[in-house]
Structures are given as C-alpha cells and as structure tokens.
C-alpha cells in the first residue's frame, strides 16, 4: 500500500457518512444542478439535484454527502458542523473527501 497520490486510501472511518458544510459560490449557467461550492476552503462542483424543492442560491450554506448537497443549513449551523468535524477528529478525512470530488474538475484555482 504505497503513497500512490492517485490512490490515497482513507485511514479508516466512514467518509461516506460525513456531512460536510459548504457555501454556494455560483450555480452553473448551463446546468442548474451543478454549483461551485466553497468546502472547507476548497472550491468544488457539488450536485444540487437533491434540493430541487428548495434550490440554494449563491451565499446559501448546504450540507454535502458524497458530492451531493443534501440539505440547506444556516451559516451558524454550518460553522457548528465544521467544529463538530474537528472535535470528532474528522476534519482531515473531510478535507480528503472534498479534494476527491470532481475527477476532471479544475476548480482549485482561486475565485475570480
């Protein structure tokens, strides 16, 4: 099990069960289901398809599971959730999870 960068196996735990808070930056012009979201300091494409009943707009906070926004939350609760991840020792797992989103995305560039 080497340090293959393309194949970084999480240290254990359950990344799929993590709920990671993110702030919607912009919704894609050509695809209303796809948003650029700031997640723990990284920008990633996140799928909004499960929030069709209550579509988030830029500035809204969402909770993300496996790359899909699952619920809208308040900013206070989003910050709380980040602290929870930290307290549970899961913030590194969350960061790794987020880095993994978007196989062919080039969203690491800073915001315009």
């Amino acid at each position, binding site marked *: *099990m080497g340090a293959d960068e393309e194949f970084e196996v999480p240290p*254990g735990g359950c990344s*799929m069960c993590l709920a990671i808070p993110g702030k919607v930056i912009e919704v894609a012009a050509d695809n209303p289901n796809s948003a650029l979201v700031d997640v723990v300091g990284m920008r990633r494409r996140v799928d909004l398809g499960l929030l069709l009943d209550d579509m988030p707009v830029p500035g809204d906070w969402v909770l993300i599971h*496996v790359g*899909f926004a699952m619920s809208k939350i308040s900013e206070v*609760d989003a910050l709380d959730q980040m602290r929870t991840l930290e*307290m549970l020792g899961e913030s590194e797992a969350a960061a790794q999870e987020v880095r993994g989103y978007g*196989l*062919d995305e080039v969203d690491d560039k800073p915001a315009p």
Partner: protein
Amino acid sequence: MKYVDEFRDPELINKAADEIRRLADPNRHYRLMEVCGGHTHAIYRFGLKDVLPPNIELIHGPGCPVCVLPMGRIDDALSIAENPDVIFAAFGDMMRVPGTNGSPLEHKARGMDVRIVYSPSDAIKLAKTNPQKHVMFFAIGFETTAPSTALTLQRAKSEGLHNFSVFCNHVTIIPAIRAILDSPDMRLDGFIGPGHVSTVIGCRPYEWIAQNEHKPIVVCGFEPLDLLQSIVMLLTQLQKGEARVENQYKRVVPWEGNRAALKAMAETFQLRPYFEWRGLGFISQSALRIHEQYAEWDAEQRFHVPGIRVTDPKAAQCGEVLKGVLKPAQCKLFGRECTPENPVGALMVSSEGSCAAYFNYEHRKNALVTSLNAPA
C-alpha cells in the same frame, strides 16, 4: 470526565450531565440504543460513558453500512470485476474491507482495475473517460447515500451511458430497528435516532416505534452536547411514561425529510424481499435493488453474480453485541483474533463499528492504564 476540556462548552455539558443524573431513577436501569455508527464513534471519542451515571447503558446499534455488509457481497462484486474490461469503482471506505480472497485494495495490487471515487457522479465521469471499459460502481450506505446513487442512475439513463452500472448494496434503517425490537433477547428503553439518515427520511418513519412499541426515540446531532441533550429528552419522556418521536437535530433535520431525495429513490429502487445483514441475519424488505426500468444499469442483472455466501465464524458474537446482549470486550474473539487491523467480525470492520470504536478508544486506554500501573 477527563475529556470535558475538549468540549466546546463545558458548562452546558455539565448542566446536561446534571440534568441526566436528576432525571435518572436510581432504582431503574436504562438501556438506550444509538442506531447510527457516527454516534457510536462520538460516544467513544468523547468518553461520554464517563459522564453518564452507571445505570444508563448505551447499546450500539446496526447503523454502520460497512459493518453490516456481508462479505459475500464484496466477493460477488469482485468476481464481476475479475473481467479485465470492468473497472471496480467504490468509496475509499470500502478499499480495506476484506473479501474472502482479500480486500479491493489487495485485488488492485494483483492487477484488478480498482478506483476510488468520492461521489457516485465521479463514477459516471470515469465511464465517460473510459469508453472502452465498463465502470461498475459499488454502491453502499443507508438513506444518507442512496439518494445520490438514485440521481446518478437517472443521469446515466438520461444520458444513454451504456458502459456504466451500479452494484447496489443500499440498506434501509427502519427494518433493522424492527428486527432488533423483534428479537426475543432484546430489551431497550428508547432510541437515539440517526441524524443524517433522518435528513432524508424525516421523522415520520419512526412513529411506529413510539406508537406500537411504546419506546421514545429522539433524532440526534453528533456533538457531545447533542447526545447528552437527546438523553435528557429520552429520560424526560420515560419519567412521564411517554413514548414520542422528538427531533433534537432540528437545525439539520426537517420533520418531513427531503422529498426530492425520496422521490428519486422511489423512481430508481425497489425493495428487495430480503437481504442479509452481518450480525443480524436475513431481514425482510431491508435493502434496495435497482428498479426494473433501470435494469440496464443494474450490475446484478447485467453480469453473472455467483451469489457467494460467507458465514461469519461461529466464535464471532457480532449479533449479540449488536443487540446489546454482550459488550464488545465480552466477545471471545475481541482484541485477540479480532482487531481493527485484522477484523473477523462485522463490527470491527469500520472505525464506526462498535467493536472497532471500543477497541480504538476504551481498550487502548485501558491497556495503557494497565501498563502504567504495572510494577516496573
């Protein structure tokens, strides 16, 4: 209370702990089950057991999807991926989970095309960038991850993506709770309900637990304070002789759940007549298979599946631990044959399994204390 310093608001923690001591009848023993593996992890990490009076016992439930997945399902999926034209795509959580002939990671080392994806939609991208190959996504999880698989199936169908399929292992939490309550050796006073599963299913599906089984259930967040507040809410109900569904995690969980997610699941999945759970055995209508209308994207319909069954070693007492009849350390294999590095039973497989959580926090702590106390 050695971990209290880590808590965000020790004063609130102490207040909740006082309230618990006030509400708990000293002549009564309380057995409360936390259903979700995330809660189990938090309880051990924060040493909450040390905060609770001894007559409040927390029983660790079946809510870790990796733990309850039978080894035969991993074997079945890996047997499909023996075909060199197939790419096996799964969450990183699955990579070290043992199959009969090794984990997906070990199969990769032997030449299988195994890829980690962080989202099922990344498996779709993988299929698009590898048009000469077939990408099989190994789907796993409770209602927390099932909706994302559902949307992914819908996208694959609408885009006419023919080199992609899903090997579906999604399970549903309610039948597992029912199986635990139906078990004759099970005695529980109430439930700490799962947080993120409830974001999807809402609180209504738990109402039968209150109405028919007369047990209170409180949907709960993941901070230590959330857990203690939920225990306060459960004890308050028990003291009054009530049994209701309450939502402590209102900041995230809407009572009605996520309707768009439920709709996507209803369109793409059907209930399996029965499904095997490690530690609990076969439970009827407890898992999802892919709807006939999506048969083309169902790996089980598209490929030959051997249907491998691997029974857990008889000595492993996962079922008893899951039902709270035994504590993790009371299992004959715990910490000897069965460790997180070399899991024999289901509950040692993922760090959210109750045996692994107990091993990582309590057992290692106790071992350290023993070695410190040993004469030089």
